[in-house]
């Protein structure tokens, strides 16, 4: 995509993030897409590639309260949501908010904790509110969760069930930096970590304004049809046990709106859909066991689907 037409505000945010993150512009963009589309992100990668740095930079750039939850097997739901503690001085229970009560939350190694604790977080993500001791606490907007998952260690983990994965707008990988990028990382590591000096470029009000504007991005019927066609193809594909849900279609549309906005357009292109679809669909597709044995991956299925579904080049005739 053409960077020259980037939305100026978003370009500033991305520029700010790039001050600390070397390379990984695409991950930063996608994270921002999820934030702008009011979704959440699942990052799946090995430790030490800069997942935390990315989230912190993002949070700092938009002036949001950053919270981090390190998931461990003995973590309790109340450790996430918060707990009411009896205050003998005031003679009453006082609610002490948990780490979920932030704007941008890094849920590190989410698959390490018990399903009960996972669901406490996932419920918050879905409902934008948490209920503790019968009291419903609204979560402050924007509310953005970036969960990470370590794909290597499976022992003692509780992999997220597919139904839960559906709650994440995007799933992506960080990947290792390039050689030159990694050298630059080493150079910077000798100095004071720049993340501490990072200043916000927009405030939360502005962010909310952007989120509102994104909803106005035009998605033409031809594009909607294209999205549905693709989702349908994943459902009827011979290697697929469970295809993308309608929620997946909605997610793709919303993400595409944010992405189009990011590139300074007020309408969505098939190119946006094609670029985002792997991140949106891959974690929503369950392959048949035969297909897995044959070594087919969900990425390949999505790729094949895109090769076969014709891109709309004419207006829909009604």
């Amino acid at each position: 995509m053409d960077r020259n037409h980037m939305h100026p505000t978003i370009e500033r945010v991305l520029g700010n993030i790039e001050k600390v993150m070397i390379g990984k512009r695409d991950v930063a963009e996608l994270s921002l897409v999820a934030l702008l589309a009011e979704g959440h992100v699942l990052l799946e990668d090995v430790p030490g590639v800069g997942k935390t740095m990315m989230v912190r930079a993002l949070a700092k750039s938009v002036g949001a309260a950053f919270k981090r939850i390190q998931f461990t097997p003995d973590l309790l739901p109340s450790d996430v949501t918060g707990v009411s503690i009896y205050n003998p001085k005031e003679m009453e229970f006082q609610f002490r908010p948990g780490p979920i009560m932030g704007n941008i939350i890094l849920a590190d190694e989410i698959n390490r904790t018990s399903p009960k604790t996972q669901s406490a977080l996932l419920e918050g993500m879905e409902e934008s509110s948490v209920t503790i001791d019968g009291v419903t606490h609204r979560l402050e907007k924007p509310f953005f969760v970036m969960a990470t998952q370590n794909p290597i260690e499976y022992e003692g983990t509780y992999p997220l069930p597919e139904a839960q994965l559906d709650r994440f707008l995007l799933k992506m990988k960080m990947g290792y930096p390039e050689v030159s990028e990694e050298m630059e990382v080493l150079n910077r590591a000798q100095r004071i970590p720049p993340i501490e000096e990072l200043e916000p470029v927009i405030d939360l009000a502005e962010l909310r304004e952007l989120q509102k504007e994104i909803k106005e991005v035009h998605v033409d019927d031809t594009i909607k049809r294209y999205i549905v066609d693709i989702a349908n193809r994943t459902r009827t594909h011979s290697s697929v046990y469970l295809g993308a849900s309608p929620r997946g279609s909605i997610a793709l549309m919303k993400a595409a709106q944010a992405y189009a906005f990011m590139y300074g357009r007020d309408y969505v292109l098939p190119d946006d859909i094609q670029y985002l679809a792997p991140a949106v669909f891959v974690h929503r597709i369950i392959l048949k066991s035969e297909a897995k044995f044959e070594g087919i991956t969900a990425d390949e299925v999505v790729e094949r689907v895109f090769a076969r579904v014709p891109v709309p080049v004419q207006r829909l005739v009604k």
Partner: protein
Amino acid sequence: MTSHKVQKDLATFLLYVLGFLLLWEWLRPLEQLTDTSNITVFLIFLMLSLLMSFYGVSPLLSGFIKVLYVVYVLHFLYFEGAFFQTSWISPFWEDLIYNFSLMADRDWSSITNLFRSLLFFVLLGLMTYLIQYWLINRRQIFIFLFMTLVYITVLDTFTPYVANGAIVRTVIAGFAVMGILTFYRLLDKEGIKKEVSLSRKWMVPLALLIAVSAGLGFTAPKAEPMWPDPVPFIKSYGQNSGGNGPGIQKIGYGEDDSRLGGPFIGDNGVVFRAEVESRHYWKVETKDTYTGKGWVTSQPEEEFLPFGMGEDIPVSSFIDNNAIETTEETSSVYTFMNYPHVVYPLGVKSIDAPPFITYELETATEKIRTLDGGRPVALDQYKLRFEVPEYSVTGLKSAETNAGVLPDEFLARYTQLPDELPNRVRELALEITQDKTDWFEKARELERYFHRSEYNYDQQDVAVPDEDEDYVDQFLFDTKQGYCDNFSSSMAVMARSIGLPARWVKGYTEGEFQQPTGSGLRLFEVTNNNAHSWVEIYFPEIGWVPFEPTQGFSNNIQFNFDNAGQNTNQAEPEEPKETETPVKPEKTEEKVADESSFSIKEIWESVKAFFADNWKVIGIAVLTGALLILMLYQKRGKWLPHYFVWRFKQTEKDEHFPKAYLILLKELDRYGLKRKNGQTLREYAKYVDSFFSTKEMSRLTSRYEELIYRGVLKEGSWTETKELWENLIKKTIA
């Protein structure tokens, strides 16, 4: 290659059933055409093999079952005793060894039936494997279907096997298989799951389509063949090149008449068309020696009388004298088969054809051969001038008195009969003619004799005489049914038996009336079905007079009875009347027929005739037209973009922008810059731009994107982008 597991669903089962039906079509003719009996055991083997393949029985088990079945069947067919009495095994084994040694010696004809059956089983086993491979792995059956159709149609054409039902069955089963396989191929290609609703969407229309088209084809009227049947031509070619089989069957006009009898096989192949003034028979040759089985020529065939165009043809017919009134007529013949000889009417005088053609008359048979530079050549068309005789009965009656002038040699030649001819034939001839005194009356009486109801005209149920039987005798006394050869041979033999010089004439009847062609001429079409034979009897001073003994035929020969007993000279004034009479009833007949069946038939006839006459011109015109269109299409890269530029240049309207853009996409595609299905316009525009090293396509495309993905057609879109568009489309000019 990924191996396909055989799915055990209905559609796959159907595939196997249809595959079995197609294979069955290969076996059906065997029962009729070869001495293979017990087709059922082979069919059961096929079914067994296919079923086991369908249920995915392991190769080891299925192989064992198949071998067991084959051995059991072989035992059942070729050996006595119970299967488990093992005593048959050693002869079986010996037979195998013996046959292997035969194979090593390449002595194929000695291979025993047992071994042949075994080999046939092996072949069928291979075929079932092939069918399974085509149906399940390749998902393609067209080659097999095509081969089946070729096999069936070839058998239908060249053998007695009638494949009418087989063709219908094969086409229906084949189309069903191809339809189902296409569905599977599509599923494989698109990577789509097979679901019941999806299958129904495909299978129901497929079944409907096959049912409707088969029904339509079945009920639709079947046109007669447009081309003459090539088989007789191929066969006659084969005959000419040597190797005559015994004449047990007769197909159309044949050359070999040494063994007559057997059914007459109908054949609509057109031999020639003729434009004539009046109806008459066409002669090809005559034969003079009766062998008891058929006719041959007594004289060597190498004797020829050459003559040229326009010269009198040295054919012996009637002698021009007072007893015969003649009218000169001409007929034009348009040939359809490449026979290097001429068909000619009685009384032929001269022939008119391209000047370089020379002719020779085979004296033994009076066959007129056409030559070009000494080599036999077939004429496309020729004109014959001939005299139509009207025999005076008085002259004929008195002719016998001059019998003495006939040379003995001549008499001997035309009254020849085989010694073995049963005496009852002569007795019958004498009995028939006992009241008659002169040759003409005798001949007429013999001719009339065959019109009795005890004799039947039949082309099918006709006997072939055994070695000790006589062809004529068999017909006259035993079978009493047959076609022209039976009738004419019988009359000729009977006439000879009572001393009348007779010869057997072969040729064609006048054929079927097609249409009047103006100026009193009429067009007849003569097919192989019109092949005919009749008798000529020689009257001294008068010459050869044709007689027509065959039931239901008329040779249109005029006899003048009015002045019988009077002076023959007085016949003259009546002549014109008489010659007109055969023409008149014909014409009225035609008129009545035309009026009663309304003009559609007439139009149809004339259309048919028009096409028949001008098919070459029409064919060339259609071909040129098709070629021209093809050329224009092939070269569309040169002119189509110009046309589009011209068309869109004039308009200022923005609505034309999307149209123009889509046309550009098409033209780029034709140019060779293919856009993949999943390629977005933007990516494609980049690709095109990198190819032409411009930025025009991207600029144009971003405009178009706004239009279709945003739904906004900005004012002036077209006028602003027209130039870009024009530049691009001009680049596609090949």
